[in-house]
């Protein structure tokens, strides 16, 4: 008996759902819920994490990330402008920088700044300065490429209109081109912010005092202390508390700038 196209599609979907449900059932039945609960959802342990995991760890993660992102954004815009400069040495410098910092692991940059620089120059960098530099230097390489694409995506007529009104090249960049470029790159820029949020976990390398703990270090410490996975799960949820709303924010901003475009 021949099936119509629609019947066939329905049949295939029904089979897929059936397999999926069977799989889920198998997992639910096979799992040792008591054991899982002890490992992941130990309410006692979870309760003991609060409020420090919010007031110290989450706050520090946000502070480290924003320090790095702020510095990275400024440096990234400068690099993007150098990359697009008429002056060849500026371009070469920017390209070299971007290639280098995109190519080496963030971990290495943290080690270099946290231990290499203090040893080599006999200076003790402030913890927050080190974090800002390390996250910012790495983030800037990515942000620079994103910004460059954004600046190039602004139509040529915008620069011409601005220049025809008597603006200098740099004035036109600052008042007309870069604000529009920012709107264009807002989604990829937010991705950068999410990536930096996660990279901020590398701060643990620098050796932190208790009040400097961020989410990952805090979670790991609690894991050792309680012999339980619960702190890691809670820390993970805390990262999501930062990153998921960011995604929503971008979608709203995108909708708003679509109106102004």
């Amino acid at each position, binding site marked *: 008996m021949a099936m119509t196209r629609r019947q066939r599609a329905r049949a295939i979907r029904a089979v897929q759902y059936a397999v999926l449900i069977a799989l889920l059932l198998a997992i639910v039945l096979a799992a040792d819920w008591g054991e899982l609960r002890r490992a992941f959802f130990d309410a006692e342990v979870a309760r003991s994490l609060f409020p420090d995991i919010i007031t110290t760890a989450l706050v520090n993660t946000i502070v480290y990330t924003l320090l790095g992102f702020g510095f990275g954004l400024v440096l990234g815009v400068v690099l993007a402008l150098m990359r697009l400069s008429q002056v060849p040495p500026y371009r070469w410098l920017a390209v070299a920088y971007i290639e280098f910092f995109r190519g080496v692991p963030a971990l290495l940059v943290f080690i270099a700044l946290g231990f290499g620089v203090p040893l080599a120059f006999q200076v003790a960098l402030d913890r927050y300065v080190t974090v800002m530099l390390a996250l910012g230097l790495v983030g800037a390489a990515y942000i620079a490429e994103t910004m460059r694409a954004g600046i190039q995506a602004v139509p040529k007529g915008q620069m011409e209109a*601005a220049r025809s009104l008597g603006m200098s090249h740099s004035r036109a960049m600052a008042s007309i081109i870069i604000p529009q470029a920012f709107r264009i790159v807002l989604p990829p820029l937010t991705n950068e912010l999410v990536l930096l949020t996660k990279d901020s976990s590398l701060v643990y390398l620098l050796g932190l005092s208790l009040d400097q703990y961020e989410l990952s270090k805090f979670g790991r410490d609690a894991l050792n202390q309680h012999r339980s996975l619960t702190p890691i799960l809670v820390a993970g949820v805390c990262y999501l508390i930062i990153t998921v709303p960011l995604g929503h924010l971008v979608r709203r901003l995108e909708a708003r700038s679509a109106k102004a475009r």
Partner: protein
Amino acid sequence: MKETTEAKGTGEADGIAIRVAGLHKSFGELEVLKGIDLTVRRGEVVCVIGPSGSGKSTLLRCVNLLEEPTSGSVTVAGTEVTDPDVDIDRMRRRIGMVFQAFNLFPHLTALENLTIAQRRVLRRDKAEAVRIGRETLRRVGLSDKESAYPAQLSGGQQQRVAIARALSMDPELMLFDEPTSALDPELVGDVLAVMRALADEGMTMLVVTHEMSFAREVADRVVFMDDGVIVEEGGPEQVVSDPVHPRTRAFLTRVLNPAAARVGEVPDTGPHGARIDR
């Protein structure tokens, strides 16, 4: 600015707004302007007509140095803008320009489009820039649109905001680069009306256009360009209604009567061919 103006020439005194002399412009191998001489007097409206690719827009863009001429000189209000020692930003603020694609700043409202250069370039304080901005929007009939973003405006409204943006800088002369070519036919009239009013107020205007009726009625002089040279220039009756040169005649036949041209032997102007019968 004053000393350069006085030092550089006699344009102010003899009432010449734009003087183009021996202007050549090449893009790589392609020579687009092959020696242009043109003078626009203060208060004069000059329309430049001609087929696509004839160099009209390039000529206009050389006047405020959006294109760097290959050779020759351009003098605006007595200052040679092609002189490398001239501060081009200072000159450009005296030369209003209107583009075919409007080029409004999409991230700013209509009023902000008018105030940003007043504030950043002329250093007017906010209250004054806003006052002048509102007044200028009223002149182009868009008082009620001051807080609209360009995307919320029709093409005709956008172009009128663009004209107002240029006017809010108090320019001494205005350049129009095919200001109605990107507009739907029913929106052309409003823009032309604004330009006509501007001409009546005595603004010096150099207009690249395909609107033959506008050229005929508003222009003091019409310049016909073809293949990088000025073929013919004179009063609008003469150039538009009774051209001397065969190339001008062929162009006008095509433009004024496209249906006839299509069946005749006159070559096609291509996708951006001139038009009048909207």
